[in-house]
């Protein structure tokens, strides 16, 4: 009886050790693990460290949830003139999408690229994104062949602002440790993003690990963006009051300065009254 208990315990211990060792094979650590956005925010750089099984290739994905919304206008020709001919919104695409790899993406089998959402031309965005055309009777979803042009423009716009990027051969791997730096632009979405690491060996996925990255606005920036979004009328009212106060304040300041500098000589004298 005693023997079997010891044997059981030993087995449990061994199993735990094995599973721990397995889990420790792929791990990731992001620093900083949260980004605070205040008035002095200029973008930030993440340092991603971790471990993968020996000789594995490393693919890292930094992405926000699929919930961005972007309005796009298509220009078209009418006679001699270029006009906005179609207005759409693109939804269900992430606003942040960066892929950083230790090797060329060509090394990754196509099927795995598709499954993990790692590709040079952002294929997975085309699959997830939905494009709605604005019309009098409400939004209408565009068929695939029409929506692709808009999605590709969205990717272009996000790439230009640094939200979307693919950087191959940018992860340093030594033995089983890896290291990478990721630049995040100032306009990153304020939400819970995820850093996911895929370890791939001989075309097979051998480990996955992920870490959250909380992006928050803080202080006045937080208050203002919340007010603007959730309490538009009050916010507008405050905006108008501040504008009026500033305009009147500056006008009074100037009239005070005028009087102080010009002495008392300008009473009722108006040289501009020449009509």
């Amino acid at each position, binding site marked *: 009886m005693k023997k079997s208990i010891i044997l059981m315990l030993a087995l449990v211990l061994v199993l735990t050790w094995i599973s721990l060792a397995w889990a420790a094979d792929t791990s990731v650590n992001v620093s900083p693990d949260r980004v605070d956005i205040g008035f002095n925010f200029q973008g930030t750089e993440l340092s991603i460290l971790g471990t993968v099984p020996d000789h594995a290739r490393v693919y890292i994905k930094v992405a926000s949830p699929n919930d961005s919304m972007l309005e796009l206008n298509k220009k078209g020709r009418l006679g001699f003139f270029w006009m906005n001919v179609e207005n759409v919104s693109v939804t269900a695409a992430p606003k942040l999408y960066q892929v950083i790899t230790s090797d060329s993406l060509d090394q990754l089998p196509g099927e795995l690229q598709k499954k993990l959402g790692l590709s040079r031309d952002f294929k997975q965005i085309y699959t997830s994104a939905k494009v709605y055309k604005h019309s009098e009777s409400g939004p209408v979803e565009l068929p695939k062949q029409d929506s692709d042009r808009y999605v590709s423009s969205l990717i272009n716009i996000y790439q230009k602002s640094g939200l979307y990027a693919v950087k191959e051969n940018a992860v340093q791997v030594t033995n089983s440790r890896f290291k990478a730096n990721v630049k995040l632009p100032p306009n990153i979405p304020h939400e819970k993003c995820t850093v996911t690491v895929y370890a791939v060996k001989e075309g097979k996925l051998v480990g996955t690990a992920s870490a959250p990255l909380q992006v928050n606005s803080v202080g006045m920036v937080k208050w203002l*963006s919340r007010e603007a979004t959730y309490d538009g009328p009050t916010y507008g009212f405050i905006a108008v009051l501040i504008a009026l106060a500033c305009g009147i304040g500056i006008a009074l300041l100037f009239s005070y300065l005028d009087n102080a500098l010009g002495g008392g000589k300008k009473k009722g004298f108006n040289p501009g009254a020449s009509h």
Partner: protein
Amino acid sequence: MDIFFPIARMPISVFTILGLGGAVGLLSGLFGVGGGFLMTPLLMMLGVPPAIAVASDTNQIVAASASGTLAHSRQKNVDFKLGFIILVGGLVGGSIGTVLVKMLRSLGNFDFVLKLAYVVMLFLVGTFMFIESITALKKLKTKEAGAHKIKKTSAVTRFMNKLPMRMYFEVSGIESSVLALFVLGLLIGILSALMGVGGGFIMLPVMIYLIGMPTHNAVGTSIFVIIFTAINVTLAQSAINHTVDLVLAIVLLIGSSIGAQFGAKLGKKLKGEQLRVVFSLIVLLVMVKILVDLVVTPSTMIVMGGGH
């Protein structure tokens, strides 16, 4: 020194924004226009999303026009009584215009027709003002301006004089029909709702040529009316689109209300005719800009939405 703007979600140098505000405020103080036609594209060039550029600019115009109105009222240029009547017409016209926009949109190609109409109108107004003010300037040189000018405007004012409910406006020194002023305000309101502009460009020529106000009074009164249009639009943008960046607007408006002060002072140094020449040139410049936007092949066919 860069600041992160919370709604535009990007850092921009404070000094760039201050300078931009100052330059546009100067125009606004000089001519009684809002200056959105200039500010919005400049902000977009800095990378501000179009919808946010438009809305934050409107908020800024509230400050610039308040500052400009006070500066002009010190010089007794603002005809509050007349401005108020136009304003009432303008608010009614604005509501009619909004409904009209909805109806026209359903007919399709609305924006196209509108932009074209705007170009034609700016061209006509700009050219007319330019020729008129140049002739007036020449006549001024030969020292016999006054008499001729009154004769010239009398053709239009004769009709206006026949309209009922006449009232005397001490500040501008003119007599005009309240009904006519209300209808002109209505027209300005409808047009500015249709064009999506503040209305300064339409208001100044209407005040000078149709109502017969002296140029300086027209500038001062126009900027007074614009305060209310801008307040109205700022509230609507905040409530419906959530696109007003208050911090961006504050930095802009510090620049623009200072600029508006200098604009009003500079305007004092210019004669009415000179002011009209420069204004007509700006009107023509805006027309050319819109026309170029319409005709030149865009570099990208799909762009971020939300602008004018």
